[in-house]
């Protein structure tokens, strides 16, 4: 499975990743609409981003959240009824909600922010899990 990993020691809190993400997933220049968040106030836990753990899948009454073949957790926005339980139930609080956007959103491990990160603090990582092997998408 693919997910966005981090080395916080390298983060310079430049917020470029937030700008890239907001533009990529929500076509916005508002950093509040980014799925990756940089907390200026913190020294540990600076970078908050989904680790694709999938706990949100079970809490969704509409079965709108699912695991794609590559292991990334995705949301079917047309099924979402906006209850926001997934936002409250995300163990790392990485399911993001913004009032202008009808459904919650999250990191989909597209890698656009990692391409732009000047310090190498964020990067895509791939681990092979048994489910993927069974699904025939990994060996």
């Amino acid at each position: 499975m693919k997910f966005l990993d981090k080395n916080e020691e390298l983060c310079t809190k430049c917020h470029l990743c937030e700008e890239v993400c907001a533009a990529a997933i929500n076509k916005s220049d508002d950093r509040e609409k980014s799925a990756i968040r940089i907390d200026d106030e913190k020294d540990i836990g600076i970078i908050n981003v989904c680790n694709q753990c999938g706990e949100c899948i079970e809490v969704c009454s509409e079965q709108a959240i699912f695991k794609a073949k590559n292991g990334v957790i995705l949301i079917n926005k047309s099924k979402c009824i906006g209850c926001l339980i997934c936002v409250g139930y995300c163990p790392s609080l990485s399911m993001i909600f913004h009032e202008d956007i009808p459904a919650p959103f999250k990191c989909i491990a597209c890698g656009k922010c990692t391409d732009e990160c000047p310090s190498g603090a964020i990067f895509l990582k791939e681990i092979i899990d048994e489910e993927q092997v069974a699904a025939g998408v990994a060996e």
Partner: protein
Amino acid sequence: MSCILTAEHVHKIKAARKVLKEFKYEPAKLEKGYANKSLYINISNNSIVSKDVTEKMKDVFIGGKGFGLWYLWNAVNPLTKWNDPENEIVISPGPIAGITQYPGAGKSLVVSISPTTGSVVDSNVGGHFGPFLKFSGWDALEIQGKADREVIIFIDGNKGTISIEEAPLESVDTHLIIEELTEMYAESDEDKRNISVVSSGTAAQNSYIGLLNFSFYDKRRKSPRVKQAGRGGIGTVFRDKKIKAIVVKFNGVKGDLNNPVDLKKIQELGIKLHKEIHDFDAIQTQKREVGTANLVEIMNDYDLLPVNNFKYGNHPETWKIDSKQIKKKVTQNMPDGCWYGCSMACAKAVDGFILKTGPYKGQKVLIDGPEYETVAAVGSNLGIFNLDHVLECNFYCDTYGVDTISLGTTTAFLMECYESNILNKEITGGLELTFGNKDAAMELLHQMSRGESFGKIAGLGVRKIKELLVKEYGAEPQFLNDIGMENKGMEYSQYISKESLAQQGGYAMTNKGPQHDEAWLIFMDMVNNQIPSFEDKAEALHYFPMFRTWFGLMGLCKLPWNDIEPANNRQTSEPAKVPEHVQNYVELFNSVTGKTINKQELIVQSERVYNFQRIFNIKMGFGQKVHDNPPYRSVGPVTVEEYLSRQDRYDQQMKELIGVAPDGKTIEEKIKITRKYREDQYEELRQTVYKRRGWTENGIPTLEHIRNLGIDFPEVLEVVNKHL
């Protein structure tokens, strides 16, 4: 669910339908939580009318139960009986109902004249019907009249059509009819989530304690399930009107359909509570894991679990029916809410249960629950500590349309009568109704469904059975009144109130009868001693009934108020009120409606409706001091064995509180002394409560209070003036 429903069968049922009336309308778009329209249907003459909801109605009665009471008030006169055509069943969800962000926001309130109390009753129920009704353009549904043949009512909220249809072939029992109708009206499997059915069952038509089931489609189990409007026999009214079901279909649930003024605020409040439940539910009340059933062992530990008709408060075999055992039966780890967005998710289900008795014996069924109340009512209170019996009884009560609480309390009363030789096998038609006899208890319920034998007597409820036993069998009225756990004609819900004076009032000084949805003060009073004086108790018996009434005005559930608490709640000045959550509710109301109430005005909103309901009771010939008298079993020990079970406690109280030495006195003498003291205490509490509530010594709201609340309409004053 259990039955194998074929397309052919559904087709056959549908082909037998005959449309009696059709009505087309333009579904109103909701504005600030209201459709501003209500739907009136008369099934005597098949008329369907759209009514305007006025600003005044919204200001005074708010919605939900408030609307139900107002419509029913206008529909009936003081002589109206439950089975008269003018009696109505009103279903109304309330302005907050239908939001998807805050837990517990899918409730409907049902109001009618009750067969057991003879007065107005209200019941709060989950399931998807209320929100779907509102999204279909209706703040309330009034059903009046009596059909001369079996009918169903169908509302299509997308197309804007309503029909009354003759329905000869549909089943009556709920687990069958909800499947038939969900299958019939859904265009695809995906569409089943858009259907909700209100139904009852065969026992509702042969008893006075019938309930209404409200369905919702469980997408993971791929089956419709039900929640119950249990109290007061509204299912009996429903079947007497010859209604088999009311169906609503609405496709397109989204989080903003209420068109609230401040969606962002509602979303923030919702996320905050979801996080709280995520962080603390597992260490607080475990609603997600076991629902309300965790109370079984807690009540047993505190001597509050009713055993053998409320004689005792605990039993060594309780472990056999506690939540640890129930956990093994219910399917875990599902988001089990009865409306969208409820992260509290207390609804539970047992999958694949094989029935051992009755007409569906051998079938594999899905059982909703069991709730604490059901476990206590049909389990411990009957001296039955057998979980399979509890589940079987739970299933049959739901599908037959019978209230588990009233059934349990009535059966417990009958068992005590049997053991006291007031009843015998001759009278019961061979049923040996001793405590612990699960087979007799089950058979009684099946008889109720068939309308046969002693089951028909049991279905009358405690008050009417008492009258019958006195009249037909010469039973001693005082003993029956002491042990028959009813007040106002409604059977008690499942808590021992003997050691909590405040809860004795919380049960008997209610509007509809002894249901704990008005006040549950036992821990505050008995365990934590937070309300020691009469004034403290009276304040609690003012505040909590008013606060809890508010849920019924809004279409909300009570559980997310205090079955989850913020981390710092214990450090606040009034932890029992859960101040942060009260503020959440104030903000929710304001964010939906655009009004600007505060926590004091929230209470006044309830006070208006609460006092109106009290006056409604007076209009129907009830609602006065004499109707707030509790049965002595709820106040203190009636029998010798009961006194002996808590002898140390009662003897000590006699010495320390009454100032009488128990030494050398017989148990009978001690029971008498204890009784005099406890009844005097209750009387003093009653007068303190009446004063705090703005009522006269006879329990009538004063003119000054009525004026201050702004409910001094001429027809209200006319009722009250006769009693002042």
